[in-house]
């Protein structure tokens, strides 16, 4: 088996490991954390109040 054939098998193998790792980790997270918490984010994140503040409210 030549270098390039080994490289192709290596590529398949690494891909499978990384994809499997993500799927397993995702299942573990789902089993360990409350779904409501995992999906509790809101647009803009934590400090979004910095943006879009109403100037007229800020400086009445």
């Amino acid at each position, binding site marked *: 088996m030549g270098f390039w054939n080994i490289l192709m098998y290596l590529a398949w193998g690494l891909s499978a490991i990384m994809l499997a790792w*993500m799927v397993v980790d995702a299942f573990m997270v789902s089993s360990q954390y409350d779904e409501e918490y995992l999906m509790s984010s809101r647009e803009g994140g934590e400090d979004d109040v910095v943006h879009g503040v109403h100037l007229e409210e800020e400086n009445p």
Partner: protein
Amino acid sequence: MAEAITVNSNKRIAMLKVLNPFHIWALGVGIVLVGEFMGWNFTVGKGGAYASLIACWVIGLLYTCVAMIDSEVTSTVAAAGGQYTQAKHIIGPLMAFNVGLYLVMAYTMLCAADALVVGDLMKSGAGVLGFADLDTKPFVVLTVAFLAWLNYRGVFATLTLNLVITFLAFMSLIVLFFAVDPLNQGAVLQHKALLTDLPYGWIGVVASLQFGMWYYLGIEGTCQAAEEVRSAGRAIPIGTLGGMMTLLVAATITWFVASGLMPWQYLGQAVTPMYDAATLLGSSKLQLMLFVATLFAAVASANGCINDASRAWFSLARDRYMPVFFGAIHPRYRTPYRSIIFLVPIAISFAFTGLLDQVITFSILSGLLGYTFMTFNMIKFRKKWPLGSIHRGYIHPFHPLPAITLLVLCSATYFATFLGYGATLLSIMAFYILASLWFIFRRYQFVRRADQFTMPWPRPRGY
């Protein structure tokens, strides 16, 4: 079975705000730069070398308008989803759904095309080294799997990698520019002999506009990182406009070097024109550099596309426009991990079709539909929230001129696309119309209408 961890009910999960303007630059330029290494040269095939230069600058103007408009709106709507979130707040749910879908389709298909390019490059490299039968599939899958894994594990490392490889790819174009002795016309570059009149007249110039988008397609993706930058008001405008300037320089250099080395008849159908340019110079070091740079550019583009497609899909899900299951954030890595995993098989499926042309055309048209929306979005944004009513990190000049220019140039590009890919254009339009009907009659009933607007914005003028 372990008991589920319930975090304090008042505590919300959020994506990490760790990115700076350099990451934004790397995201935008990283997605695009592969277009300077291949693809842009189809403009030459459509209308000759001068038509390609006209397309380079005219479409450059189109994207400058996009970058300016995006910078202003995103510096205010600092949320993942980018143009989708903008459309939701400024126009309405149906437009938002369509824009979100354009984004997901455009980036997922572009990612597939980039992975195909990586596979083809590996095959070419193996061929040069004496192994002609390399199967590209394992390298296509590895590209998508590795980049998805990287995206899954955190945005900072993902975009830092993009910063490094995008910068190296850009520098390779600068090195190539100096290698052709640009100030000494005739020594290496043969513009006088190679530049002919417009071979297909001005209709060729119009036809070349469609492929002119390759020079810049994807720079608008910077907006997707708005929720993960430390300061959206600063980082998005600096990163996006800096990226646009970089691309204008890169595009012009690319055209200048390639059109001075190759006749338009060859250049217009070359697969890897910049690699060919290095080959013509007879330097094996330059050849190797351009080979690696093309590889880096393709990987950076795929990386940025996974980042952006997942944020767009995540945002659609967070608002229940798509199944809410995909709106989850990883508690450790703070990434939209379910969206990232979900898009992997889709990208690989598109890539396995091997239809690079069709995949890219779908991506370009989805992008074009998105740019058209921006014109109406910008006009409405300034009307509903005039200057002084809300904080803006950046205010673009000459409003409404950029929005009107953008609409005119988008119309010209639609016409150009219709000339070359009329059936594809109509079938894509039909796809989005069907998707819209599905959204109106089936999906929108699941959307919690009040929950989708959580930005602390004042009531718009006139409402």
